[in-house]
């Protein structure tokens, strides 16, 4: 399935004195079968953005299109099954007495038969290498194990798109590389994955396209090499120079790439880069 955000904006607490504009005019496509990385500083709108993909948040402006159809007109429960969203620290939402039952929650809500539910639970736990935890209490697990169980709880719905919001935050390097390996395997099986992360290395490793958010807007989107080359080679000072240039040279615009920066600097200095 294909998801397109068209000029999506989101204001929290609209009409109150506590209103916050978290997203501004975001247009972004999630292509079927791709791994899309979403990066950006804290408060840049990453988590708000991904909650629009399954309409947990309804845009206050703009539209979300699923295969060209306005997502608001689709059945909400069906959309949430097809777009599986794993929140930040998803282990905080574990609640059942055993791991097995917790993972079974979503497929049961789908009204599947008991055999089918069992099969899905086994499969999802297996994918995350957590099959041996099935009979344990989720509250007695380690942080990394809880995380894997929580992700299995979403995978058990059989989503077409899996959205992972900072799945590796707070995990040890081993668990981290395991998870990134999982993303690779899911992609190979044809699943679309949206990976939100602070860790640029892991995004560079698995993402085919990267979207960089800043202050609730898309600052740059494209191949990881382009986005990272432009951004990571820009020292903070250079970013400020470029931002200043933006005023004088609207044509510099966005996305900001290293080449463009040099070209713009050259124009300002009256010399060729």
């Amino acid at each position: 399935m294909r998801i397109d955000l068209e000029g999506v904006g989101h204001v929290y607490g609209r009409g109150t004195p506590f209103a916050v504009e978290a997203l501004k005019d975001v247009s972004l496509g999630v292509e079927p079968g791709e791994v899309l990385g979403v990066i950006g500083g804290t408060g840049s709108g990453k988590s708000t953005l991904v909650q629009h993909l399954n309409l947990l948040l309804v845009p206050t402006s703009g539209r979300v299109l699923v295969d060209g159809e306005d997502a608001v007109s689709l059945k909400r429960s069906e959309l949430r099954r097809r777009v599986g969203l794993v929140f930040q620290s998803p282990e905080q939402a574990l609640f059942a007495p055993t791991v097995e039952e917790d993972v079974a929650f979503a497929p049961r809500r789908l009204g599947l038969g008991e055999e089918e539910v069992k099969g899905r639970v086994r499969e999802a736990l297996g994918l995350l290498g957590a099959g041996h935890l099935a009979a344990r209490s989720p509250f007695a697990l380690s942080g990394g194990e809880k995380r894997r169980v929580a992700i299995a709880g979403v995978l058990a719905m059989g989503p077409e798109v899996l959205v992972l919001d900072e799945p590796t935050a707070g995990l040890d390097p081993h668990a981290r590389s395991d998870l990134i390996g999982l993303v690779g395997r899911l992609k190979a099986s044809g699943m679309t994955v949206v990976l939100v992360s602070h860790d640029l290395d892991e995004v560079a490793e698995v993402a085919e396209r990267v979207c960089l958010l800043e202050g609730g807007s898309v600052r740059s989107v494209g191949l990881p090499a382009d986005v990272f080359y432009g951004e990571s080679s820009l020292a903070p000072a250079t970013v400020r120079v470029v931002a200043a240039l933006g005023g004088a040279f609207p044509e510099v615009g966005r996305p900001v790439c290293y080449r463009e920066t040099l070209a713009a600097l050259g124009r300002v200095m009256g010399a060729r880069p």
Partner: protein
Amino acid sequence: MTFARGVGRFYPVDSPLHALDPRAKVVATAVFVVGLFFVDSIAGFLAAGAVTAGLVAASRVPPGAFLGLLRPVLFIVALTFLFQVFFTRDGTTLFAWGFLQVHEGGLRLGVLLAARILILVSAAGLLTATTAPVALADGMEDLLSPLKRLRFPAHEVAMMMTIALRFIPTLGEEAEKISRAQAARGADFDGGGLVRRARSLVPLLVPLTVGAFRRADELAEAMESRGYRGGVGRVRYRELRFRARDAAALLLTVLAVAGAALL
């Protein structure tokens, strides 16, 4: 789902009421609320209502936001009013239709009780809207401190109040977050009958409780690691100062409520 939004919320603006000493505001509110029970005439309630309205205006809290605070009690007010109007058989009959009778005394009592509840809630709301939670707790601690001689743990009670107030929005946010995470797994908190609805809350309440205990543990550890060991020998970052204007505000409140009671 929206949790505890607006009710009793501190409204951070600059106003003469915000600047008053919290102790003065707590005592004035208490005097006003108790005094309201001695008011028993329409004129008295008009006066008390006018004073409250004037104070709301002086607090610079937008009237719309302030009325939002009254919304939850409107149902109780309406219920009280209707009960008094229809079930008090006192004075001349104004209206009769079958078993429904409205007497003059009932109407009067209904209006007075409704006015009392509305003004009472407004006064309490005014206190929380114009006093930051921390200042409120500091004020309460000072007011309760004479009881320390009777071994009443004034500081600890105030600290518990501060922490409780501080964590209401945090818990609300967490509840919102968890309910969204469960909604992403197909949970539905609104559908079905009472039993089903109660059951559907399990995936929300269990993680919320677990999280609250975890948070309490973490907070206790953080406080201990920073050397907290109760109120003994503890000084404050912000000292409260009772100024002339605080005394004046208190005096005016006493006069206003005494006047309203005599009317």
